[in-house]
């Protein structure tokens, strides 16, 4: 009976307008983000290239160099970018605060402020600032060297002081840089990184990861509409009483609806990823790598499926509880909060609903953080099961008592 009902529910979804909107929005969003050809970033690096991309470095000297460089540039402009609640806020310091920051710069570098600004000008003048390429290159290669005897612990203390001066959400917060900073890669590093993409990701894995990064954003929101629509359809069509009075158990009724929605929401995701992966399978073969043909399946099941499940479960739960569309507002807020609370666009998964890895490759770094991602997704998987069970409990309660808990509280007041 469960299987039959599941198929019937799937057919119902296929007949609904909301589902087609879901598919179209999903595909449009992804193709707008991932449309271009990115195979050129997946070539074996050659010696003597102009640059070898960026690489993440956790070396203390690199961290100090990059952070001081950023501090010097921002101090020179007296404009500090901060993201206190996830939204941008430019901070301008007053004279005394600015002097304090400059003093810290002088203390860290062992040079006076004039010398430091002199170095900035010198560095940027040596690049062709008129071209986009040159400006970028100047930015990424700029580094300010700390004085030789500055210890890492001292540096950390100075950064804390800066955070106090500039305020919350600046780039000087330890969480933002302790995972490493972005520095220009060397040929050796580029080769190493490329080897990692070829052996660990086997090309398609890296593609799947980038796909999951974008898909994860829309999938925090789109499935809400499927869930809310399904739960409110009974009320709209006035079939609540009829369904209640039938013999089939609540677990089977809700279970079939939930599972049908999960499957139908996941289907376009997995198909899109499979299609997007195909050119890269071909590309992998041309550069002599055996592609991981199942990468699309592994990544979408681990990365995206738990997200779809938890978003749908929350939509089911809130909608059955309140019998209105409030879950759309709550869950969109949840998604946006998660999107802005992620510290970086790459890793630091934490307990974020939306897991980000907005880069092609960086394979070694990803594999270091993979465990964190697995814990994160495991958590959401369990959370979705908990909310699913709660939905059953609520539906059963409504079915037996003929009134909602929410209705009891709010309708009486009228």
């Amino acid at each position: 009976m469960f299987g039959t009902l599941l198929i019937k529910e799937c057919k119902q979804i296929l007949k609904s307008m909301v589902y087609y909107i879901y598919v179209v929005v999903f595909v449009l969003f992804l193709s707008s983000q991932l449309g271009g050809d990115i195979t050129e970033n997946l070539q074996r690096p050659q010696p003597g290239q102009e640059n070898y991309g960026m690489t993440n470095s956790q070396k203390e000297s690199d961290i100090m160099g990059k952070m001081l460089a950023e501090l010097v540039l921002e101090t020179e402009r007296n404009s500090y970018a901060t993201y206190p609640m996830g939204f941008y806020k430019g901070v301008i310091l007053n004279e005394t605060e600015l002097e304090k920051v400059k003093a810290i710069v002088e203390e860290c570098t062992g040079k006076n402020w004039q010398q430091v600004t002199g170095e900035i000008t010198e560095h940027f003048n040596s690049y062709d600032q008129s071209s986009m390429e040159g400006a970028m290159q100047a930015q990424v290669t700029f580094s300010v060297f700390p004085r030789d005897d500055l210890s890492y612990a001292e540096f950390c203390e100075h950064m804390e002081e800066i955070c106090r001066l500039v305020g919350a959400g600046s780039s000087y917060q330890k969480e933002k840089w302790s995972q490493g900073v972005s520095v220009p890669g060397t040929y050796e590093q580029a080769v190493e990184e490329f080897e990692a993409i070829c052996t660990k990701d086997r090309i398609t894995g890296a593609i799947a990861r980038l796909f999951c990064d974008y898909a994860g954003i829309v999938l925090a929101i789109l499935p809400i509409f499927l869930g809310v629509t399904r739960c409110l359809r009974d009320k709209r069509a006035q079939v609540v009483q009829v369904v209640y009075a039938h013999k089939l158990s609540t677990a089977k009724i809700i279970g079939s609806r939930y599972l049908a929605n999960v499957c139908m929401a996941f289907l376009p995701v997995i198909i899109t990823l499979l299609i997007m992966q195909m050119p890269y399978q071909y590309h992998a073969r041309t550069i002599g790598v055996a592609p991981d043909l199942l990468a699309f399946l592994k990544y979408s099941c681990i990365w995206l499926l738990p997200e779809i499940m938890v978003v749908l479960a929350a939509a089911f739960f809130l909608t059955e509880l309140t019998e209105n569309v409030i879950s759309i507002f709550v869950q969109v807020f949840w998604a946006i909060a998660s999107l802005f609370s992620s510290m970086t666009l790459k890793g630091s998964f934490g307990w974020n609903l939306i897991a980000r890895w907005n880069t092609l490759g960086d394979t070694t770094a990803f594999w270091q953080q993979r465990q964190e991602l697995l814990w994160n997704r495991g958590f959401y998987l369990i959370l979705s099961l908990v909310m699913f069970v709660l939905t059953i409990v609520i539906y059963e309660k409504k079915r037996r008592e003929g009134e909602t808990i929410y209705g009891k509280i709010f309708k009486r007041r009228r």
Partner: protein
Amino acid sequence: MGITIEIKDLSKNFGKKQALKHVDLQIEQGMFGLLGPNGAGKTTLMKVLTTLTKKSGGQVRLCGIPVEQCGQVRKMIGYLPQDFSMYGNMGAYEALDYLAVLSGIEKKKRAILVPQMLEKVNLNDQHKTKVKAMSGGMKRRLGIAQAIIHNPKIIVVDEPTAGLDPEERVRFRNLLCEIAKDRIVILSTHIVGDIEATCENIAVLNLGEILFRGTVSELLQAVRGKVYTLEVSTLELPMMQEKFLVTGILTNGSTANIKLIADQAPMREAKQAEPDVEDAYMYLMNHTSASKGRE
């Protein structure tokens, strides 16, 4: 265990409002009519029987099973709600098939039963008609089909004939009578004619209380000899309506033939008439509300 419904001291409150007050009823096999004005509590009583509302007090047993055992009870009831509807984008066949799945009927049986039931309710040439395109009567017929498809022992239909044309109404009544042969069919209505034509046993409900419980002839017995017909001038009509319980008026020029209920003959020229259920119902309603007023 025979097919019976026992209701003892049943109460249902919605907040402070008492929709059912200490209802006692015993329902046996056959058609059972539940009669009462708007807001009498008919739907509420039916919802208690079909596990859709939790009772506030008392006991209800269906074929010996307490109504609290929802799963068991749902298996043996078929319910046609007052405002039955289905998902608008489903065809008749599809909708009935869906509900048959909810009743736990196997695929093979559904393939036989669904067309059979649609034929029974005269929808056999409407398999593909979408529910949203159905008339009220067609929806009701679909509703009755879903209520009987799993062959339940107890069928509860809430105002099934409301909004049907006379021809359809007669067909519907006959269908219900046919089904009622070896089970209980509980039918609620405020159309007295339906009850008269179909039900042997009836209960009259008003303001959550049972006013009368018995057979149709027992109900008629209460007014036998109290129904009179009389010819009066139309000018006298308002006065007559004030003084007596007038259940029928047939005007004919300046005179009118009226039917009224009174304990004694109102005038010498009044002739005694054969009572029908409507007279009895009106008498009952009037009588109890009058006696209530005196208290």
